[in-house]
């Protein structure tokens, strides 16, 4: 848009140079250290770590638990977003502000607070007939906590934009409320919902602070993959830590790509609607 104007704003080379230099120093070179370490590892070293049953169990919990937590967030995040956007009730604005708590609350604080609640003698724990804290279920509870705002905040603006006239048209043509929801509203918000769920999933896979307190960290049972990286580092097993980290990093990048595609779809859907 500015291509026709003469370029008069100064400072391009300086600001771009500083940006690239700082980005390289803080982010790119350290990440390259991980890649360099991984590139120097032999196939046997990779297999020794990634074939280990304890490592595999930690991946199962980190990815499987994150998938369950993200699905729960998908359902309840949609419900919360719906209530906040569509209904007016006292305290709505305070609740809306509180949604971001998991973004703002340090993960260690969330971790010990959830543990206090769900421990066998805790407020919630003593009401339940089964154990939550110190089991994989505890890890999933922490994953739900940290993932919730991603789903709510991604759906809210899209839900606001859903064409009310389309809904009314569906109703006047004889569609029931649930038919309208499934046929009109759900397709309109589907890209945003999927984006939110993917973001919550990505965050839960890599989460560490809030989980390690409540999960109990029993090897092969309630131990998450990020914790295993820390454990391997403490044992000076840099090769093992690097192997797990690389696999997780590859998964995050694949997710990032998927989320970018979803967001593009979301923008197209929204662009077509308005």
């Amino acid at each position, binding site marked *: 848009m500015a291509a026709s104007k003469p370029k008069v*704003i*100064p*400072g*391009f080379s300086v*600001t*771009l140079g*500083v*940006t*690239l230099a*700082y*980005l390289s120093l*803080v982010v*790119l070179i*350290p*990440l390259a*250290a*991980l890649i360099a370490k991984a590139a120097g590892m032999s196939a046997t070293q990779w297999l020794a770590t990634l074939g280990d049953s304890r490592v595999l169990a930690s991946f199962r919990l980190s990815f499987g638990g994150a998938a369950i937590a993200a699905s729960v967030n998908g359902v*309840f995040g949609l419900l*919360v977003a719906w*209530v*906040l956007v*569509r*209904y007016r009730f006292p305290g709505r604005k305070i609740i809306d502000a*509180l*949604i*971001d*708590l998991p973004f*703002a*609350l*340090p*993960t*260690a*604080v969330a971790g*010990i*607070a*959830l543990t*206090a609640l769900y421990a066998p003698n805790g*407020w*919630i724990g003593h009401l339940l007939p089964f154990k939550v804290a110190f089991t994989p279920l505890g890890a999933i509870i922490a994953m739900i*906590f940290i993932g*919730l705002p991603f789903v709510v*905040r991604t759906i809210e603006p899209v839900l606001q934009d859903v064409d009310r006239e389309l809904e009314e048209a569906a109703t006047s043509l004889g569609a029931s*409320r649930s038919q309208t929801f499934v046929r009109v509203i759900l397709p309109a918000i589907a890209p945003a919902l999927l984006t939110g769920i993917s973001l919550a999933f*990505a965050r839960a896979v*890599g*989460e*560490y*602070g809030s989980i390690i*307190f409540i999960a109990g960290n029993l090897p092969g049972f309630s131990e998450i993959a*990020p914790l295993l*990286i*820390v454990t391997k580092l403490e044992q*000076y097993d*840099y090769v093992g830590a*690097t192997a797990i*980290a690389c696999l*997780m*990093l590859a998964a995050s*990048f694949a997710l*990032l790509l998927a989320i970018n595609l979803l967001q593009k779809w979301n923008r197209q859907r929204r662009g077509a609607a308005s």
Partner: protein
Amino acid sequence: MNRDPLLIRWLLIALAIGFLLLFLALPLAAVLTEALRKGVLAYWHSLGGDDTLASIRLTLIVAAIAVPLNMVFGLTASWAIAKFDFAGKAWLVSLIDLPFSVSPVISGLIYVLLFGAQGILGPWLIAHDLKIIFAIPGIVLATLFVTFPFVARELIPLMEEQGRDEEEAALTLGAGGFRTFWAVTLPNVKWGLLYGVLLCNARAMGEFGAVSVVSGHIRGLTNTMPLHVEILYNEYDFVGAFAVASLLALLALVTLVAKTALAWWHRAELGATAGH
């Protein structure tokens, strides 16, 4: 405004509020109750311990270094990206967002692989008697990494939205580059900048995983507040752990209130992405 039957409406509201009470309000309440379990005196006493005060001091020092650096970077990067057209711009924006998709533990690990005793630069650092890992520089670096995108990602869309006309007008009228930045650009983005700095600061003071990997957990020396919470908790000093946690929870609440106030009063000046 909506034609959902009253019963369904209240049922959904009750369900949503119930879920949020369970997952958001109760943990907050638990922090406060556990911290005050043995009374206000025990609470104050546990906050006055030497190691606790040292952890508060370290957290403030780390934030005081990391937040301004990332703020200056955010302003520089958004000036380059929003005010000019160049090839690879979309790539650069994605790279700036990259730290958000890296697990905190991996964010710490990469610095250990670079600067640790067995790391790439380890032998050189030891030969020159420099300590980065298990010392404050490592904690600052890990914090810089995890808070890297906050200010930039707030400012880039905002500055792009505002365009270049005002700057070009100022320059045509004879203002220099710096004068234009101070008198035109900065006032236009000040609320967005504050918003980004608030979020950056909350994360800098609250970061756990990345800092945990590089800190070495030396009491009174390399323990930040979140790490000190973990140590006290693992020593079964629950009042102490929740007392320090209550300070961090207070920081989170202040951040939320300030951020919400900014979004209410200055929504128009915060750009499209703000509000979450």
